[in-house]
């Protein structure tokens, strides 16, 4: 059986950045396993620009951003296998994978980095009534068809859900000659970035209908139309508000779900709020030596933050292999409480001894907050109070915690992060 110090599951933005970072932190024996025919993951189909301002100080398209990391992986001589599907990981960190050249094979790893990304919520998970004709796609599937395979999924399009991929596809389909009739969003706010509302919808005069959903799907072989209705505060359709749209294509952009089937099978604790692993300050799961980063951990809006997070996971995995990780002492593990509008935090627990000088705690809020404060408390003492003009569930927030501040706090047993109103 082959063995590697670190096996990375997934060769997308998270896997690539984790590999580069682990290598730069002194680990030579690294293997990336990727199920697609090329490295880069979802970036390959994200041909729009806007990536990398944070990381490279320039505006790149998805494939260009991916190439920057793929080049580093190649230059550093990091090994990878393409067209390879990971089937299972055992608690002893034996990875079982398969591909057409090697068949089924096992690899022994000292540490594993989970970087499998996420997938789109499907029609089945949305419970939309009506027929099941052809012409209903997830926005990401349509994106792959148009941008990589070179097929147009349809000509008259309705998009349900205002996630970023849905907004990007509204523009993309319009540029390719389709008529995008409307983007409907169940919630009273958009799930995507503000800039995408401006440059993908407003630029092309595509209406965004908030608090609306699809209540009927028509067409037996091919989609012929859908019905939209407004919803009340409980997200229930309001009778009498139905509007019919003739269309041959319905794109669904209704949320992303971290892909954690393998993680669950190993016994990794999953946070029900994120559907990703619960991790500590080192981005390590409850199983020592198994780390997670990127969209498999929690869904990000910005790839730059994925790269940053993954670099941290790679560095910590290297530290783990070199024996630099202090064994977690349950008494010294501090839980971050997410309350008052904060839905979750990544990381969820902090073991101060293993912390970098400063760590970034990322989270999302549960609603739209205007002119509120992000506050962090150590026990009852407020240490951070930062004003934010606007916060929304579609945009990830962060606070930075300093090790020196945490160490200086006597009897620290709880960190709380919450949203506070003007007081």
């Amino acid at each position: 059986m082959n063995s590697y110090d670190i096996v990375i599951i997934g060769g997308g933005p998270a896997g690539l950045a984790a590999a580069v970072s682990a290598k730069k932190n002194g680990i030579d024996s690294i293997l990336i396993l990727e199920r697609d025919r090329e490295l880069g993951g979802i970036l390959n189909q994200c041909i729009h620009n806007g990536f990398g301002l944070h990381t490279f100080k320039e505006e790149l398209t998805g494939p260009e951003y991916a190439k920057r990391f793929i080049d580093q992986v190649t230059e550093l001589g990091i090994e990878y296998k393409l067209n390879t599907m990971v089937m299972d990981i055992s608690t002893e960190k034996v990875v079982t994978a398969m591909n057409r050249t090697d068949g089924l094979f096992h690899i022994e790893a000292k540490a594993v980095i989970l970087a499998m990304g996420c997938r789109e919520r499907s029609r089945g998970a949305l419970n939309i009534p009506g027929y099941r004709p052809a012409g209903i796609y997830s926005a990401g599937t349509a994106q792959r068809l148009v941008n990589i395979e070179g097929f147009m999924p349809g000509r008259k399009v309705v998009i349900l859900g205002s996630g970023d991929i849905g907004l990007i596809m509204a523009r993309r389909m319009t540029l390719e000659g389709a008529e995008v009739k409307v983007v409907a969003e169940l919630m009273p706010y958009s799930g995507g970035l503000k800039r995408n509302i401006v440059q993908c919808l407003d630029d092309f005069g595509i209406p965004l209908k908030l608090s609306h959903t699809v209540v009927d799907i028509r067409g037996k072989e091919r989609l012929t139309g859908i019905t939209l209705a407004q919803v009340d505060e409980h997200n229930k359709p309001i009778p009498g508000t139905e509007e019919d749209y003739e269309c041959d294509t319905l794109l669904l952009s209704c949320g992303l779900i971290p892909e954690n089937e393998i993680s669950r099978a190993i016994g990794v604790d999953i946070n029900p709020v994120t559907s990703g692993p619960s991790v500590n300050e080192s981005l390590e799961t409850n199983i020592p030596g198994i780390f997670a980063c990127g969209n498999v951990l929690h869904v990000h809006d910005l790839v730059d933050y994925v790269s940053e997070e993954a670099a941290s996971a790679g560095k910590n995995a290297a530290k783990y292999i070199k024996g630099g990780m202090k064994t977690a002492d349950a008494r010294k593990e501090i839980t971050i409480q997410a309350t008052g509008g904060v839905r979750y935090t990544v990381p969820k627990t902090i073991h101060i001894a293993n912390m970098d000088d400063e760590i970034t705690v990322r989270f999302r809020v549960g609603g739209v907050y205007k002119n509120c404060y992000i506050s962090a408390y150590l026990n009852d003492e407020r240490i951070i109070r930062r004003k934010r003009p606007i916060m929304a569930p579609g945009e990830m927030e962060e606070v930075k915690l300093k090790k020196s501040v945490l160490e200086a706090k006597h009897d620290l047993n709880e960190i709380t992060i919450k949203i506070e109103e003007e007081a």
Partner: protein
Amino acid sequence: MEKRNLTCIGCPLGCALEVTMDQTTVVSITGNTCKRGADYAAKEVTHPTRIVTSTVCVRGGAIPMVSVKTEHDIPKEKIMDIMKCINALTVDAPVHIGDVLLSDIAGCGVNLIATKEVL
């Protein structure tokens, strides 16, 4: 004095910008958190521009499409003219990142360049 409210598209922060105009002259820009925001606001109220990204057909490559972008931003009203040029184009593999696939696209004085390697 006229005030216009914009959302910056320079980066994903999406800053809320307020531009004060005197006829066609920009008097002041507020709300931006970087220089890009000020540049965007000044352009957006006078002559709005965009980067166009799309795909071009490839002959003999590992995949049938290569992703492309305009090397610089182009006038917003030219977007559809540029798409016509892009859709009329087919290139031969191999294509490398940065290859100029079409120069002076739609008379905008801007090149169309590949953003992906297709071998």
